[in-house]
């Protein structure tokens, strides 16, 4: 099998998979839409989690550590900038889809400046010019549109997700110019992107490993909360953790009645 057809097969699989899952999204209110909701797919999720953790421990993490050790920080930053920039069309489109017109325009100029003056995205010249990087994706757009989160989904290789987030796997793939380059360039770039991304996360995962008593639950909860934070652009409502304290008060009153 040559590189090109392998690449096409992988991309088609991602597309079929993510559109298939979109069918599972519904706008009906669901019990799974609050923090601490049951993990309906826990058995499968934990299986894939263990698979990914093993893959990470024996392959990805050691490679990334070596990479981080021998790559100067400036080079690493440029690599991160390049891949962020080339994936930025997805951010722009979703800024507009969420009705954030000003942000969408600023993001468009950002992409233009970083791709040209920033030499193909290697340098982030836009941020100092007052065009900050934003974090948007199709999963956030669907949330803003009122689509429910759906079950938590831990995917092999790709990691934590929710059903609502899976269409983004398609949109981000289709809107990334790298998808359309030949396999001989695509696969090496993909490898660099993955290793560089993992290296950027070494500190975060070491904090997680130090803090967590149950890695799976920690990852799930932190991921779901992080998504809420992004959907609400850094100011999620306080209702959920206010509710935790309310529960306690209710429990106490039950005790008194007893």
């Amino acid at each position: 099998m040559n590189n090109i057809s392998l690449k096409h097969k992988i991309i088609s699989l991602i597309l079929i998979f993510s559109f298939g899952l979109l069918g599972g999204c519904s706008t009906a209110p669901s019990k799974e839409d609050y923090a601490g909701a049951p993990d309906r797919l826990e058995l499968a999720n934990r299986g894939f989690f263990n698979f990914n953790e093993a893959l990470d421990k024996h392959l990805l993490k050691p490679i990334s550590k070596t990479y981080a050790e021998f790559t100067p920080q400036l080079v690493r930053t440029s690599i991160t900038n390049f891949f962020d920039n080339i994936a930025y069309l997805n951010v722009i489109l979703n800024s507009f889809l969420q009705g954030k017109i000003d942000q969408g325009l600023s993001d468009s100029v950002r992409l233009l400046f970083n791709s040209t003056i920033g030499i193909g995205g290697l340098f982030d010249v836009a941020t100092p010019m007052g065009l900050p990087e934003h974090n948007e994706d199709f999963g956030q757009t669907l949330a803003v549109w009122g689509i429910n989160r759906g079950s938590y989904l831990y995917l092999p290789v790709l990691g934590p997700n929710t059903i609502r987030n899976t269409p983004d796997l398609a949109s981000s793939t289709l809107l990334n110019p790298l998808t359309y380059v030949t396999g001989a360039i695509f696969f090496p770039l993909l490898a660099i992107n993955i290793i560089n991304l993992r290296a950027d996360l070494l500190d975060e995962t070491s904090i997680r490993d130090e803090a967590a008593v149950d890695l799976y639950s920690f990852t799930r909860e932190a991921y779901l909360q992080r998504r809420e934070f992004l959907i609400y652009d850094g100011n999620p409502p306080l209702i959920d953790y206010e509710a935790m304290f309310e529960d306690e008060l209710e429990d106490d009153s039950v005790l008194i009645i007893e």
Partner: protein
Amino acid sequence: MKLNTVSARICGGGILCTILLLWAVGLVSPVTAAPTEEFAEASETVERLHQKLLEVMQQSDTLGYQARFNQLAPVISSLFDTPLIVKVILSRYWKKLTALQKSNFIEMFNQLSIATYASRFNDYNDEQFREVSKEVLKKGRLLIKTELLRVKKEPIKLNYLMHQKDGNWLIISVIANGVNDLSLKRAEYAAVIRAKGFDGLVAEIERKIEQMENSNE
């Protein structure tokens, strides 16, 4: 039910619509409460924690883990309402514990908090803390929004949920960039109790404290 869903049903969705709805039902206060004397005391609690953290960070060259732990211990023990925190975290398991188990767990959890801070705040790169705003919540609770400013890096948003106990403002939850330590631990501890029982959880936490001690030696 998700607010977005509610807003979608009532006025077609959108962030503006969601905010309007939140505002209409009084969940978003249009004006941040004026800082009164009372709230100045709450700010002081957070400032005392931040001040101590900065101190141990700035002295990280000379202070070892144990010295950082010892300096942080009295501050963390007095500024956090640990009994309420563990009660919320253990939730329905809490009532099944004996009085001795409860008091031991509170003490162990306090040690865990101190160890976590001592282990994580172990170097200094010109970080600064800054209070951003305050928000009055239900039942007299208060949310203090702060930022940890870092050189050439995005600031970390640190929000403190506070309540008053015996006239003192105490921290009951810390939310770092949207991730709330309380619900994180609640999810984790429930999973460990299900798999290994309460004693298993205690053993795991003790192991964590020990690990932090050893890896920072």
